[in-house]
């Protein structure tokens, strides 16, 4: 997840931007451009699409930045704007895949890198995430990598917290299966 210092820095930079401090906006964009692109890239199929949509997102974010009331809530707001743009682009081209959203109501266990595979590394996880459906990978990215709570993810994604829990459960299961299958193929 985003480190605590990054979250504080993000809040500080937004506050400085409101006070017209020079360079605050640039630093804020620098802090979030890569995580945002990574998220958008998982939602969209091609690099070109992700690039265009990310550019549109930043135009919109810079335009609406003063509307963010609580600077601490900026990351959640940013990802929500990103999702809205990505989904709108996605809908123009194809329909979102429907997911099995019922049948799981328990608590989502914390992410453990060893949870999926004992030899998990970033490249494998990256590949695994790219094999999942956008709805699954976005929940994993937002909750486990960006550190948003289930409620925050629900707000970003625009579904009920129960649905997020369900998606996280199935996403972890799907990721584990994908990685195990790949490991078996490698062994053979």
């Amino acid at each position, binding site marked *: 997840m985003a480190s605590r210092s990054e979250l504080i820095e993000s809040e500080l930079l937004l506050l*400085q931007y409101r006070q017209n401090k020079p360079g605050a906006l640039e630093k804020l964009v620098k802090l979030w451009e890569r995580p945002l692109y990574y998220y958008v890239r998982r939602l969209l199929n091609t*690099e070109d699409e992700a690039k265009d949509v990310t*550019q549109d997102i930043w135009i919109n974010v810079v335009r609406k930045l003063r509307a963010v009331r609580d600077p601490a809530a900026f990351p959640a707001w940013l990802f929500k704007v990103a999702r809205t743009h990505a989904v709108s682009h996605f809908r123009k081209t194809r329909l979102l895949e429907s997911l099995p959203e019922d049948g799981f109501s328990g608590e989502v266990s914390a992410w453990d890198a060893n949870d999926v595979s004992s030899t998990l590394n970033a490249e494998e996880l990256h590949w695994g995430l790219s094999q999942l459906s956008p709805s699954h990978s976005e929940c994993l990215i937002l909750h486990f990598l960006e550190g948003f709570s289930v409620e925050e993810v629900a707000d970003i994604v625009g579904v009920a917290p129960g649905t997020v829990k369900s998606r996280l459960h199935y996403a972890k299961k799907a990721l584990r299966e994908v990685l195990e299958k790949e490991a078996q193929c490698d062994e053979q």
Partner: protein
Amino acid sequence: MSNSKLRDKLLEVETYPEGLTDSIREVMDMKERPLKAWERPFMILCCVVFGMMLIGVPIWIAIGFPYPITKVPTYIIIGFAFAVVLLCCLLVLMLLSLKRGTWRLRDDQFATYAGAGFVFYMYLGSMTTNRAPGGWDIGAYILFAVLLLKIRIQASELSLREHMLRNELAVAKLAELIAGRTAADRKQSQG
């Protein structure tokens, strides 16, 4: 591996398009570009002249015609026109006095200049109509003083919050450094 480190590594794995950074910077420059040195006096001149032309000239022309009908003394209308033009100048200066010379305005700056402009306008109005300030005038002054104070307090709060966040950031970075160092030491001792 902690989630924070895993996240950083994942972000490194993803190829970030080079052109994207430049296009985002272009968007920011459009919003953030400060006025150049030559642009500021030029802007003042243009705005003042424009303000005088737009508001002053029609009033100056108008006072010649309605006098026989309205019988309003000319000095009152001239005074009023001057007040309006001066208020416009104040607005222009307010916009140009920003720290970076951009067109964006902080709430407290806006409150200060708008309040000052309003008081000046009221004062000039009282002078030109040659009457003592009444209850409504005093009420308006008080209202603006309270508004000004409120916005000033908000600005101070923002500044205090900034200082607090700076301290929090320093502590968080220090904690991360210590945690990293401790983990490295532990690995070394195990190895």
